[in-house]
C-alpha cells in the first residue's frame, strides 16, 4: 500500500493541476458568489451614551455573528433613510430599537439577543447595587459552576423556519460540487491501472486486492479531504466566514461526505469501460446532483415536487443539508445523525457494489483478449 501511495504522490507531483484548479475554483466561486465577505451580519449601532447602552454595545462587539459600525444617533437616522437594506440598532438606557425595513428571522434573533443582554446586565446591576461587587463575583462563579437553569433559545417549529446565509450557501455548495471532480478523477486511477495492466502487475507481486483497493481509495479520500479542509480553513480563518460556532462539525461532516463521494466515484467507474466514459458521466452527474441537491440554490425555494423528490439520490443533498443544519440552524452532530448515517450507509453499499462489479470486469478484460 505504501508503494501505491508513493506512485500516486509522484503522479500528483507531476500533475498537480486537478487538485489545485478544483481548490482554486471552489475558493473563487464561493468568494465571488457570497459577495466577497464573511457572513457576519452588518449592524449600524448608535447609543445614547449611557452606561447601560455602552455595555450592551460592548457585549455585541464581542459576538462573532455581528460586524458592527458605531454611529451617532443622527448619523444612524440619516444612513437608515438612504440605505434601507441595512440593519440599524439604536441602544438606550432602558430600551432599544431595531431599525429595519423588513422583519426577518435575522432581526428576530437579533432582538432576542439584545433583550437577553439587557436582562443579564440589569440582573448584574441589581446584585451589585444590593449586595456589592464581591457578591456578584460569587454569583457569577456559582452560575458558571452549576447553572440553575438552562435557557434554550429556539423558534417555534424550528424545522419549518427557512434560514438563509448566502456566504455559507455558496461556500458549501461549491465546495461539495468541485470536490466531486477531484475525488472522481483520483478514483479513476483504479480504472486506468486495470486498463494498463499495472493492476495485474501489482497482483502478481502478491499485493492483495484489499491492499490495492485500500491504497487507491484511501489516497483519493485523503486528497478530497485535504481540498475540503483547505477551503474550510481558508474561509473560516482568513476570509472570516461565520460558521455559527459549527466549525468542527463542518469538518466532521465534510469527512463523511468525502467518503460518500469516493464510494460514488468507485461505483461509476465500475459501470464503464474507459476513463473518458467515466469522466463524461461524472461531469453530467456532478452538475445534476448539484442542482437537485441544493448546491447552487437552497432547496427551500424550489417549487417543483418532482425535482424535490429527486434530491434523495444526490450525495450533495446529504452533505449540504447536514452542513447547513450544523451551522445556520445551530444543530448538534446528533441533530444531523440521520444524514451522517445515510451518507455512511450509502458509501458502504456503493463500495461493496463497486468493487464487486470491478472484479467482474477484471474477468471480462481477460475474456475480451
Amino acid at each position: 500500500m505504501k508503494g501505491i501511495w508513493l506512485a500516486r504522490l509522484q503522479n500528483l507531483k507531476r500533475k498537480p493541476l486537478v487538485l489545485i484548479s478544483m481548490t482554486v475554483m471552489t475558493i473563487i466561486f464561493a468568494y465571488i458568489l457570497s459577495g466577497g465577505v464573511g457572513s457576519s451580519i452588518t449592524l449600524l449601532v448608535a447609543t445614547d451614551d449611557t452606561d447601560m447602552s455602552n455595555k450592551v454595545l460592548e457585549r455585541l462587539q464581542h459576538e462573532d455573528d455581528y460586524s458592527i459600525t458605531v454611529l451617532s444617533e443622527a448619523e444612524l437616522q440619516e444612513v437608515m433613510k438612504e440605505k434601507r437594506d441595512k440593519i440599524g440598532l439604536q441602544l438606550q438606557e432602558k430600551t432599544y430599537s431595531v431599525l429595519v425595513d423588513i422583519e426577518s428571522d435575522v432581526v428576530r434573533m437579533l432582538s432576542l439577543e439584545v433583550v437577553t443582554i439587557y436582562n443579564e446586565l440589569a440582573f448584574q446591576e441589581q446584585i451589585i447595587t444590593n449586595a456589592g461587587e464581591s457578591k456578584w463575583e460569587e454569583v457569577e462563579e456559582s452560575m458558571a459552576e452549576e447553572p440553575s437553569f438552562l435557557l434554550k433559545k429556539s423558534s417555534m417549529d424550528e424545522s419549518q423556519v427557512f434560514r438563509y446565509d448566502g456566504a455559507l450557501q455558496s461556500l458549501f455548495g461549491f465546495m461539495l460540487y468541485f470536490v466531486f471532480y477531484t475525488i472522481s478523477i483520483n478514483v479513476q486511477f483504479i480504472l486506468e491501472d486495470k486498463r494498463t495492466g499495472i493492476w495485474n502487475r501489482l497482483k502478481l507481486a502478491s499485493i492483495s486486492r484489499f491492499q490495492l483497493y485500500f491504497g487507491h481509495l484511501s489516497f483519493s479520500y485523503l486528497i478530497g479531504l485535504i481540498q475540503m479542509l483547505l477551503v474550510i480553513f481558508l474561509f473560516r480563518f482568513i476570509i472570516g466566514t461565520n460558521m455559527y460556532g459549527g466549525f468542527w462539525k463542518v469538518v466532521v461532516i465534510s469527512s463523511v461526505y468525502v467518503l460518500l463521494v469516493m464510494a460514488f466515484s468507485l461505483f461509476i467507474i465500475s459501470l464503464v469501460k474507459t476513463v473518458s466514459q467515466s469522466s463524461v458521466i461524472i461531469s453530467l452527474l456532478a452538475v445534476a446532483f448539484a442542482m437537485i441537491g441544493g448546491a447552487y440554490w437552497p432547496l427551500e425555494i424550489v417549487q417543483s415536487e418532482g425535482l424535490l423528490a429527486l434530491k434523495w439520490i444526490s450525495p450533495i443533498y446529504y452533505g449540504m443539508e447536514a452542513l447547513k443544519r450544523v451551522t445556520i440552524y445551530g444543530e448538534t452532530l446528533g441533530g444531523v445523525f440521520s444524514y451522517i448515517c445515510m451518507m455512511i450507509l450509502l458509501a458502504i453499499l456503493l463500495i461493496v457494489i463497486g468493487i464487486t462489479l470491478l472484479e467482474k470486469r477484471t474477468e471480462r478484460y481477460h475474456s475480451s483478449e
Partner: protein
Amino acid sequence: MLQAIDLHKKFKTKEAVRKVNMQLEAGESVGLLGPNGAGKSTTISMLSSLIMPTNGEVLWNNVSVNKNPEALRKALGVVPQEIALYPELSAKENLHFFGRIYGLKGQLLVERTEEILQKIGLTDRKNDIVKTFSGGMKRRLNIGAALLHNPSILIMDEPTVGIDPQSRAYILDTVKQLVEEGMTLLYTSHYMEEVELLCDKIYIMDQGEIIAYGTKETLKSLVSDNQTIELKAHILSQKFEEALKKYFPTANIRKEDEILLITMPQNEEPLATIFAIAAKNAVTITSAIVKVPSLEDVFLHLTGRALRD
C-alpha cells in the same frame, strides 16, 4: 517446472480455453503461437495465477498454483501485452516503484535498477518521463519492470506488438540473451518468425485449444518433409525440364505461370546441379527460391486459415 493440466476457462457463455495441457521445464524456451483471440492471453493469465481456471490445474514444481500462488509469483516475471507503466513517471521511478512492490529496497534496489536499465538499453534515458518515450522504448521498459526481482521464469505476452523493426530486433536480442543465460521462457505471439527464432518447443493454439505442439521441425513435418524450388528463366525449354526429370527422378516437376516448380525431399541440396543442367541446356536462370514449410504453413495446414487472419 510449470505445468498446465486440462485447463478450461469459461466466461459466462463463452468458452475461452478448452482442455489446455502444457509443460515448461527449467531453462526451456517455449512458444505459444496463435492468432488474435485464440485464448493465449487467457491461458497465460491462468498460468501466472491472475485468474482461476474454471476446471483443471496449474502446478509449479508439483504444487498447485490455484491453492498456493505465492511460490510461483516469487519466481515469475510477466511482461503483459499492455504497456503497464506509469506514463507520468520517469523510467527510473517506474523501476523503483515496481522494485519496491517486489520488496527490493536501499542499495539493492538502486543496483538492480541500474542493471536492468543497462540490459534494456535505457541508461541514458533513465530520468526521462515515460510518456515521452517511443513505442519501442516503452516496450523495453515494460520488459525491464518484469525482470527487477530476478525471476527464474518469464512469461511474455506479445512483447513486440506495434513497434518499429529496429526496436523489435533489440527486444528479440534481449530475450535471446535472457534465454541463453538460462531463463525459462514462455513467449506468446502471432508472429511465427519470433517464435521460431526464440523457442525450442512450440504450442499452437486456436479457438481456445492446443491444436499441435512439438519442436519446430516436428511441427513443420506435419505439413511436409519436402522443399520446393521455384525457378525463373529467360526461356524455360522443354529440353531443360526433361533433363531435370531425368536427373531427379523422384522429384515432382511442373510449370505454373512461366515458373518451374521442383518439389523434392529436404535432405537433398540440388541447386548446384540445377544450375549445371541449366548451363548445359543454354538456359539462363534469373531467380531461384528454395521454399521449406513455415509455421504459417503448419497453421494453415491445421486450421485452413492464415495465422494473421
